[in-house]
C-alpha cells in the first residue's frame, strides 16, 4: 500500500456517529457534571451501552476484536484506528464523560496484552452482557507514580488454598469506583492490580492480577477532587489480605531473571498511549472549533495563505494551532496503524503522546486567552476544556516520561543508560 491518508469507512462512520453523541448527549450535560463532581451520568452510560450493543460491539475496547474465538489473522486490521477515532470523537464531546464510557477500558487492555486465551475468555466475555460494566487498571501508588517499578503492593501465593493474597494501596485509579463497587445499574466489573510477587526481583517480580468487583478486603478509600475531568471517578483503593484465585495472575507465576512481567505493562502502554493522545486531541479540537466559531460570529476571518508578516496575531495563533492539531492527530493515526499492522511502535506511540500532551494544553490555554472574558467565564466550556486537557499531559505517562521513552528509543539506550 502506498502512502495514503484516506480514513477507512468505519473510522469515518465512527466520527460521524459519535459527533452527534458528543453534541446531543454529552455537551448539554458537560457543565452539570463538571459542577456536580462524582455524580454518575447514568443516562449517558445506559445510552452508550445500548448503542454499542446495537452496533454489535460490547465495548469500545479493542478486546472485542480478540475475544470471540476468532483467529488472530482474521480480526479487523483497523481495530486501533477505529478506536482512536472513537475516543477522539467522544473526548471532543466531553473528556470527563468519555471516561464514563462502559466497557473494559485499561483493565481489559491489560488482560488483552498479558492474558492467556482462557483468561481473555473468562474476563472479557462479560462485556457482552445486558448491563454496562467497567474495568480499571490499578498501577499507581502513593510512592510509585511514573516510576512504577517502585510498586510496593505485594502478592503472596497461599499454597494451601492456591490463592494469591494481595496487600497494598493504589491511587489514581480511573473508573475504580464504577469497576469495583456494586451498583444496581451495572454488571460486575473488575480491577487489574499491579503487584510484586518478589520484592527482591525488581521489575522481574511485577505482575498484574485481576480482582473481581466486590472481592473482600478491597476498599474504595476516597474519590479524588480534581482540576478537570470531574465526571471521571478517580479512586484511592486499599487492599488488605485480598484473596484471588491462582489463575487470576496475568503472565507467568514464577519469577524469571528477565523483566517480561514489567514489559507486559509497558506493552499495554504502547497500545494505549496513542489512544490517550487521541483523547487530548479531541478536547483541543473542541476548543479550537469553538474559538473559530466565536471569531466568525465577530467577523474575524482567518486568512490562510498569507505570509506571516501580513497576518494578525490571532490569525497566526489559529494557524499555529491548526498545524499542531492536525499533525498531532496524524501521529496518533500512524502509531495505531502500526499497532494494527503489528509493527513495533514504542517510539511512535510515545511520540504521539508527547505531541498530544503538548498541544492539548497549549491549544486550550490559547483559546481561553484569545476569548478573554468569554474564555474565562464558566458560561462557556472553553475554561472547562482548558482544565480537562491538562490531564492528557499527565496520565498514561507524563510528557516527561514519554520524552524519556522517546529518547531511549532514538538513542538506543536502556533504562540504566538514560535514567
Amino acid at each position: 500500500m502506498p502512502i495514503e491518508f484516506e480514513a477507512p469507512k468505519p473510522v469515518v462512520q465512527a466520527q460521524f456517529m459519535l459527533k452527534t453523541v458528543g453534541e446531543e448527549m454529552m455537551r448539554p450535560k458537560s457543565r452539570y457534571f463538571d459542577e456536580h463532581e462524582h455524580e454518575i451520568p447514568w443516562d449517558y452510560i445506559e445510552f452508550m451501552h445500548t448503542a454499542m450493543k446495537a452496533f454489535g460491539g460490547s465495548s469500545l475496547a479493542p478486546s472485542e476484536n480478540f475475544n470471540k474465538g476468532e483467529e488472530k489473522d482474521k480480526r479487523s486490521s483497523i481495530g486501533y484506528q477505529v478506536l482512536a477515532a472513537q475516543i477522539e470523537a467522544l473526548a471532543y464531546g466531553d473528556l470527563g464523560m468519555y471516561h464514563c464510557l462502559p466497557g473494559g477500558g485499561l483493565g481489559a487492555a491489560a488482560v488483552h496484552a498479558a492474558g492467556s486465551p482462557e483468561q481473555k475468555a473468562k474476563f472479557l466475555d462479560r462485556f457482552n452482557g445486558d448491563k454496562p460494566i467497567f474495568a480499571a487498571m490499578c498501577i499507581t501508588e502513593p510512592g510509585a507514580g511514573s516510576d512504577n517499578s517502585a510498586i510496593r503492593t505485594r502478592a503472596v501465593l497461599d499454597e494451601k488454598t492456591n490463592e494469591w493474597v494481595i496487600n497494598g494501596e493504589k491511587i489514581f485509579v480511573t473508573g475504580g469506583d464504577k469497576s469495583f463497587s456494586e451498583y444496581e445499574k451495572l454488571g460486575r466489573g473488575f480491577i487489574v492490580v499491579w503487584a510484586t510477587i518478589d520484592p527482591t526481583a525488581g521489575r522481574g517480580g511485577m505482575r498484574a492480577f485481576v480482582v473481581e468487583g466486590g472481592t473482600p478486603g478491597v476498599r474504595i478509600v476516597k474519590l479524588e477532587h480534581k482540576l478537570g475531568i470531574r465526571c471521571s471517578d478517580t479512586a484511592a483503593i486499599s487492599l488488605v489480605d485480598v484473596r484471588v484465585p491462582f489463575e487470576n495472575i496475568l503472565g507467568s507465576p514464577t519469577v524469571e531473571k528477565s523483566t517480561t512481567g514489567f514489559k507486559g505493562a509497558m506493552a499495554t502502554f504502547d497500545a494505549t498511549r496513542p489512544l490517550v493522545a487521541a483523547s487530548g486531541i479531541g478536547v483541543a479540537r473542541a476548543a479550537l472549533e469553538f474559538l473559530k466559531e466565536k471569531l466568525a460570529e465577530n467577523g474575524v476571518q482567518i486568512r490562510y495563505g498569507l505570509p506571516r508578516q501580513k497576518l494578525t496575531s490571532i490569525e497566526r495563533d489559529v494557524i499555529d494551532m491548526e498545524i499542531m492539531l492536525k499533525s498531532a492527530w496524524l501521529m496518533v493515526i500512524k502509531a495505531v496503524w502500526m499497532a494494527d499492522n503489528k509493527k513495533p511502535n514504542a517510539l511512535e506511540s510515545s511520540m504521539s503522546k508527547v505531541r498530544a500532551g503538548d498541544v492539548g494544553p497549549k491549544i486550550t490555554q490559547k483559546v481561553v486567552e484569545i476569548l478573554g472574558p468569554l474564555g474565562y467565564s464558566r458560561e462557556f466550556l472553553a475554561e472547562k476544556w482548558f482544565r480537562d486537557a491538562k490531564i492528557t499531559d499527565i496520565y498514561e505517562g507524563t510528557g516527561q516520561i514519554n520524552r524519556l521513552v522517546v529518547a531511549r528509543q532514538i538513542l538506543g539506550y536502556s533504562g540504566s543508560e538514560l535514567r
Partner: protein
Amino acid sequence: MYSFEPTEEQQMLIDAIGKYASNDLRTAAHEAEENHELSMKLVNKGWELGLLQASVPESYGGFGEHNAVTGVLALEEMAFGDLAGTLAVMTPSLFATPILLAGSEEQKQTYLPKIVESNWSPYTAALIEYSFDFDPNALKTMASANDNYFILNGEKAFVPFAKDAEAILVYADLDGKTQGFIIPKGTEGLTISDEREKLMSLNALPLYRLKLDSVKVSAANRLGGASGHDFELILASMRLANAATAIGVAKAAFEYSKNYAKEREAFGVKIAQKQAIAFMLAEMRTEIEAMRLLTWEAAWKLDTGKSDAFTEAYLASTGAADMAMMVTDRAVQILGGHGYIRDHPVEMWMRNGRGFATFTGLAIM
C-alpha cells in the same frame, strides 16, 4: 485506508537519492558553502537520478507521472545531504514543473523534452521579491495586457542560475492574480545583476536579482497560453517542496547532534545520557515526525485533488519552517561551542533553518 509505507518504486528512488545525498552532496557541502561554488559535475550527478524526469510523462520525454508524495519523499532525502546542492539540482524543475502542471500544450512540447532529455541545463524561475512583506499572491512586479502581448515591470530576487538561464519563468501580477511568463535569454528590458545575492546561507547556490523594464512577452509565452493558469497548484507545490527540504535539513541536524551527544562526554557520562540533552533530542525527533506527516498528508491531498489540499500545503510549509528553525537551533545548542564553529555543519543548517520562512519559490515538486 491509512498507510505510511512508500511503494517499492518510491523506496528505490529514496535509496538512490539517499546515497547521493550522503556520499556526494554532504561531503561537498562544507567546501561549496565556504568557497561559494558548486561543482557542476556534482549537480549533474544529482540530475541523473531523474527526479524531474520521473515526474514527466513519456509523451514529453520523461518516464513517469507527477506525484507530490514521491516529490516530498525525494526532496527530504536529498536535502538531508545539502540544501544548496538540492536547490541547484532541482533548479530546472522551477521552470519545467509549472509548465507540466499548468502550461499550454505548445509550451509542454517546446520545453519539456528539451529539458528532461538533456543534461542539467539552466532553466529557472523568479518568484521572490525583495520586500519584507513579500507575498506570492500579491506581487509587486506588474504585468499589463495588450492586444497580443504583455508588458512586465518590476524586480525579482533570489533567482537561481539566472545569469546562465536559457529561459526564466517570471511571476507577475496581472489584474490582481499571479501569473507566470516565460522570458527567454536576452529578451530586451531584462537585466540580470552582475553580483550574486549575498545571503545568510546558500552561498554555494548562484542567486541573482532581476530587473524588468517594460519587458515584452508574447501571449503565447504566458504560462498556460492566452487564457493563463491557476497559480494555486503551483504555489502549493512550491510550499510542499519548501516543507520537504526543511524536514530534510532538520533531520540532518537532528542526526548529527544525536550522534555527537552519544560521543561527547561530560561529568563521566555521554551528554546524551543527561535528560537536558536527551529531552531536547526527543522533542526534535517528535517535531520532525509531526511535520513530516503533515507534509505527506498535504502531498497526498494534492495528488488526490482534495479540496483543502492548498490550505494544508500552506500549513505544512509554515509548520515545517518553524520546526526547522527549532531543530537546527537546538542542534547547535547540543554541540555547544563546537556547534558555533564552522568545522561542524550544524551552524550552516541553522542558517538554512531560518531560511524556510522565506524560501518558498526556490524549489518545487
